C-alpha cells in the first residue's frame, strides 16, 4: 500500500494513453459520429422537402383534375347542344320531306283521276256512239255527225 515508483510508471502510462486516445481514437470516432449525424439531418431535411413537394404535386394534380372535369362537362354540354340542334334540323327536314311526299302523292292521285275521267269519258262517248248506231241501225256519216259526237263528248 506504500507509494513507490509504480506511481511514476502509472503516470507515464496514463499520459501515453490519453495522448494516444487524443490522437487516434477520439477524432476519427467523433468525426464519424458527427458525419453520420449530418447525413441523418440531411436525410430528414430531404424527406421533409419531399413531403412538401408531394403536397404541392398532389394539390396540382387535384387542380388539374378539377380543370379536366370542368372541361369534360363543358364538352359534353356542347355535344348535347349540337345533338339537339342536329335532331331538330333532321326533324325539320323530315317534316318538310313528308309534306313534299304527301303533296306529290296528292298531285299524282289527281293526275291519275283526271286521266281515268278522260278515259271514262272517251269510253262513254264510244258507247254512246255505238248505242246511237244501234238505235239508228244505220250508218251515219261519221264526218257529218262528228260535230254532234264531239258536242256529246263535251257534255259528258
Amino acid at each position, binding site marked *: 500500500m506504500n507509494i513507490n515508483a509504480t*506511481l511514476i*510508471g502509472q503516470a507515464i*502510462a496514463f499520459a501515453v494513453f490519453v495522448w494516444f486516445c*487524443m490522437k*487516434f481514437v477520439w477524432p*476519427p470516432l467523433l468525426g464519424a459520429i458527427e458525419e453520420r449525424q449530418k447525413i441523418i439531418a440531411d436525410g430528414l431535411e430531404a424527406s421533409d422537402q419531399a413531403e412538401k413537394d408531394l403536397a404541392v404535386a398532389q394539390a396540382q394534380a387535384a387542380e388539374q383534375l378539377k380543370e379536366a372535369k370542368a372541361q369534360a362537362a363543358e364538352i359534353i354540354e356542347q355535344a348535347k347542344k349540337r345533338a339537339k340542334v342536329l335532331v331538330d334540323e333532321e326533324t325539320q327536314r323530315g317534316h318538310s320531306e313528308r309534306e313534299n311526299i304527301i303533296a306529290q302523292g296528292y298531285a299524282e292521285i289527281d293526275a291519275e283521276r283526271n286521266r281515268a275521267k278522260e278515259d271514262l269519258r272517251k269510253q262513254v262517248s264510244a258507247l254512246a256512239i255505238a248505242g246511237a248506231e244501234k238505235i239508228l241501225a244505220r250508218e251515219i256519216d261519221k264526218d257529218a255527225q262528228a260535230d254532234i259526237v264531239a258536242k256529246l263528248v263535251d257534255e259528258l
Partner: protein
Amino acid sequence: MASEYTTSEYIQHHLTNAVMCTTENGIAFNKACSDAGFWSWHIDTLLWSIGLGVLFLWVFTNAARKATTGVPTKGQAFIEMTIEFVNSNVNETFHGKNAVIAPLALTIFVWVLLMNLMDLVPVDILPTIAGFIGSSAFGMDPHDVYMKAVPTTDLNLTFALALGVFFLIIYYSIKIKGISGFVKELTMQPFNHWAFIPVNFILESVTLIARPLSLALRLFGNLYASELIFILIATLGLWQLPLHFPWAVFHILVLPLQAFIFMMLTIVYLSLAHEDH
C-alpha cells in the same frame, strides 16, 4: 481459500502487491524488496493496468479504423454510444474549446471502468494461477507469489491518475489566466483584501490540493473496501455463496459509478480551471 492459510494471512496475501526492485544482486522480488524504498515497482498493478489500457485503446482504435458514416455495426454502435455518453457529459459541463478534455474523460472513464471490473473476477482465481505459475516455472513458494489484480486498489495508480489531472488543472489555470491570474485566484479569494492574503492562500491551497487528493482517495477507498469485503466473504466457506452474489450485483452499480465520478470530477475541475474570474 487455501486451507494452509490462517484467515488473516489469507487476507494479507490477497492484499499484497507483487513487488519488483533492483538490488545489488540484480532484480529481486517481493520480500527481498522490503527495504528497497521508493524505487520498487508493483508489477501486478502495472501489468493489469497497462494491459487493460492497451485493451481499451486496441478496441477503440479498431472501431475508429472501421468507423463508417453509414449504418454502424453493433460493436461500432456500442463504442459510439460510449463516445456519445462521454461527449455529452463533457459538453454539458465544459463550455470552452479544448481538444484534450474529451479524450481525457473517455480514457479515464473506460480505463478506470475496466480496472474496476477486475473486482468482479473471483478473488482466488488470479492469485492461484499466479501461484501455480510461480511455483512450477520459477520454483517459488506459492505463498510468496502475490497477485493483486484490481489496479484501482493500488494507491499508486489512483494517485498517478489524480496527479495527472492535477497537473492539467494547474497547466490550464496558468494557460488561461496567466501566472498572475492564477496567483491572484489563490490569494485574492474569497476575501478580496490584501490583509487576507495569507488566509486566502491557505484556504485556496487546501481547496486546490484537496481535488487530486479526494479524487485518488475516493477511488482507492471504494475499490479497496469492496475488494476487502470480497476477500472477507471468500473466507466464510460455504456461506460465501449467498453473500458473494448480492455483493457482486451491488458492484455492477458501484464500479461504473466510481469510474463515472472520477471522469465527471475531472471535467468539472478542468472547466473550473478554464473559468476566468
